[in-house]
């Protein structure tokens, strides 16, 4: 007999909850007519950013490609005239990318960053292979301050001795008594 009341209650309670939601604001939205603003740390399309001086941040160190669990990043490193290492080409295959963001964690230069641009579907798979020119943006992304070459690459992107953890060249002979 106790079971009987319990079952009645169990049948009616869900209806009650449904009834309650009828009067609340719906969570579903009418995509694509309506669009949602994702949170800033949302992980969608990747971009390559630039340092405060406008230089390409990516040094083609291959770390993102090594970190990527689905192997969808490839590139070729090259040397610029001033000794700077950069990516001659850089390619992300977004049809394989699982948007895990591990590449951005691996990146020592803050070059590769996730954005909230999630609308990159395409009927043609090859259109999802993004080249460097498709990836490179004109801003520093989430961190506009950081410049890898200020900390490293002695004498590459700034005059020797002007880096942040650098001192000017020393002439050891000047230390002689």
């Amino acid at each position, binding site marked *: 007999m106790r079971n009987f009341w319990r079952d009645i209650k169990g049948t009616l309670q869900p209806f009650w909850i449904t009834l309650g939601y009828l009067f609340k604001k719906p969570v579903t939205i009418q995509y694509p007519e309506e669009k949602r603003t994702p949170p800033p740390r949302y992980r969608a399309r990747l971009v390559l950013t630039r340092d405060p001086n406008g230089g390409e941040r990516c040094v*083609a160190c*291959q770390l993102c490609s090594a970190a990527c669990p689905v192997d969808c990043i490839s590139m070729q490193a090259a*040397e610029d005239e001033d000794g700077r290492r950069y990516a001659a080409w850089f390619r992300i295959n977004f049809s394989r990318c699982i948007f895990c963001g591990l590449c951005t964690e691996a990146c020592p230069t803050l070059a590769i960053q996730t954005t909230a641009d999630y609308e990159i579907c395409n009927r043609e798979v090859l259109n999802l292979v993004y080249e460097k020119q498709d990836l490179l943006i004109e801003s520093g992304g989430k961190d506009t301050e950081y410049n890898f070459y200020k900390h*490293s690459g002695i004498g590459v992107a700034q005059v020797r001795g002007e880096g942040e*953890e650098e001192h000017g060249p*020393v002439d050891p002979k000047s230390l002689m008594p």
Partner: protein
Amino acid sequence: MVNLTIDGTQVTVSKTATIYEAAKEIGIKIPVLCYAKKLMPYGACRFCLVQVEQMKGRLIPACTTPVSEGMVVTTTSEEIEKVRKTVMEFLLVNHVLDCPVCDKGGECDLQDLAYEFGSTSNRFEGEKFDLPTDEVNPLIERNMNRCVLCGRCVRVCDEVVGYGSYSFINRGFETKIATAYDRGLSCEFCGQCVSLCPVGAILPRPFKFKARPWQIKEVDSVCGYCGNGCTVTLGVKDNKVETIRFNDEIGVNDGNLCIRGRFGYSYVNHEDRLTKPLVRKDGQLVEVEWDEALQVAADGLAKAQQGQGAGILSGARLTNEELFMLKQVAKTLGTENLDNSGGECYKGVTEGLKETLGVAASTGTFPQIEHADVILAIRSDFYETHPVVGMVVNQAIRRNEAQLLVVADKKGKLDKLPREKTLLSQPGLELDVINAMCKVLLDEGLAKTDGVDGVEELQAALADFGLAEVAKRTGVDAAALQTAAKQLAGAGNAAILLAYGLPYQGLSTELATAAANLAMLTGIAGREGSGLYLCGEKANSQGAIDLGILPQGNGLGARAMLAAAAEGKLDALYVVAEDPLSSYPDRDSIAKSLENVPFLVVQDLFLSPTAEQADVVLPAASFAEKDGTFTNAERRIQRVRHGIKSPGEARSDGAILTSLAGKLGSSLAFTGSAAIFAEIGKEVPAYAAFNYNEIGPQGVVWGGETLQPASRKLVAVAGGVAADGDFKLVTGSALYHSGTISTRAKGPTAVLSEAYLELCREDAADLKVADGDLVKVSGNGTELKLKAKVGNRLPKGVVFTPYHFAEAQVNRLYKGEAVIPVKLSK
């Protein structure tokens, strides 16, 4: 043997082992940075500190401390970890944060250790290194900001290479590694420092920014250049050999390489490689399909065989399996005219040694040389021809206090070492010096004549090789000659080194015979630990001899074939992996042979000057594109492995020869190299003992570490003939090149891109020529213009020119003699 306890485990090791080596034996890993297996213990970095019960109160470096009986060692404890971590912090005080742009990233010992110790922050602060990079030379980049001062480059360049480029300069925080006067690096560019630098301070420039280590496929193979047979590890990415990697775990060479092996790989990726077969139609070479080319070749050769006959000339850079197939082609075709490498240079082995010792190979193995007490190098100090054996000689002198004797017409690189004695002889008269040594031994009763035939005959024949006469004739100091002979006879272990090759054709049989006589009289031949080394110029010179790529029956040898062709008495020539026009002596007569032979087939990687004359050109594969075995100059059979695909439609020589044999009507078919290797065993008994698939990383040595001579017969040889003329020209191999193929590789040509004429300062002053001036060299009826290179290696009146460069046409002067009288003028 010594017993000790490491981390509670008992271990018994040899008394020369260090704590580090003992721990390694039982699988305990002690972190190291400055330690390198092939270098002497040094103790620069202090990462390997351990605790030893008996030496309480301080930590002991494991890499420099020899084991002692009853030692109790602890390799990890809280204290040790703390100290090691601090050492790391010290190192990182001034180390740049370059990993993302540093090519070493991913295989950097410092990175690995920092990761292992979890060093993420530093308690100390200091100035980062701030030094300019050295990018003056095209091959090795030095960025001393990344240096950890382990001294491995300094030590390897000195201990192993014997060049001594580097040294520590300045003090304290300013200490750095520098070359003399802190200039740009300019050395022999063997790249040993690149291999040994644990960090990204010394890097190979041709590989700069090409790839990360994890993207590279490593293929262990054998260097395709000289008979040293070094193991090279091809670094392959996207079907391209991008670099040669360091591997000291396998092979005979302990990871040592010379410039050709280390930087000379790029010819395999060369854009001029032949990619399609060519057939001459209406006077032009046109691309055709394989089937057509093979058919034309087969028909032409068969037709020639019906007529006055066909001849086959081979190079010695084919694998044993390919050489076997070449022999099959000769058999199917029915020709006995078969030969390799110009036919003359290897006769020291096939005739000289065969007649005296009854074997046709070196009697010892290279590792034995390191333990020799006395080493005699004949004609050159061996470093130019077989640099890595040269490094072994260097180590023998430095580590084991060996005495090096060089009988040559010029000083060698090792000349500056202590315990080195060069018996400087007139060119072409080294033979007399060796004969005189034999005579000294016989006269003074030092000769070991038990079981040796022909002692009296030799004694009689050597009558006019008395010390005084020979000294007068050759210019060698009589007392030095006598001492040298005595040293050689008195040595426990000794080695006699003699290189042969295309530029060393003159007196090759005689020199080898004389060397064999000396080896018998000193007891070197067949003695455990000693050896007579006759080393071939090319990667598989020994294999070509073992497989009998020699004139068969009454067949013609290389010289005779070319002469017959010149006279119109040979109807076809099939040239495999050789460029006779560029590399054989007497270019003009060879040009005539190639012109007069009605049908010429050339099989090569490039459209060489010889191939340009051909009726059919078959594109072949380089060593990096095939599987098989090479036999090096110490009889070691090693596996060559396929690393990349051939460009275009090029095929391996083995595949070409198999198809050609098929077209000629042979029904032989093999399923790969292993099957052919097994078949070789049926013809060459020495090879029957081995199974192709069981050839390990060290290779297998046929005939054992010490090859026992089949006979001991002294054969007298007459002395050389002194050349007259103002200047005496000798030709030979330059350290940076091997054969003609290395002139297509970027690395070696970056250092040496053209032929030169080397002469001593005095002669240069007399002739009023300076380095780089053009000098007219006339002799043998021709005249050449060569750039002067002034040095102090040569005695007065002797000049040297390397033979590698096709454009210089040195082989118009050089007609196979030991020394060429020439006139020089500005």
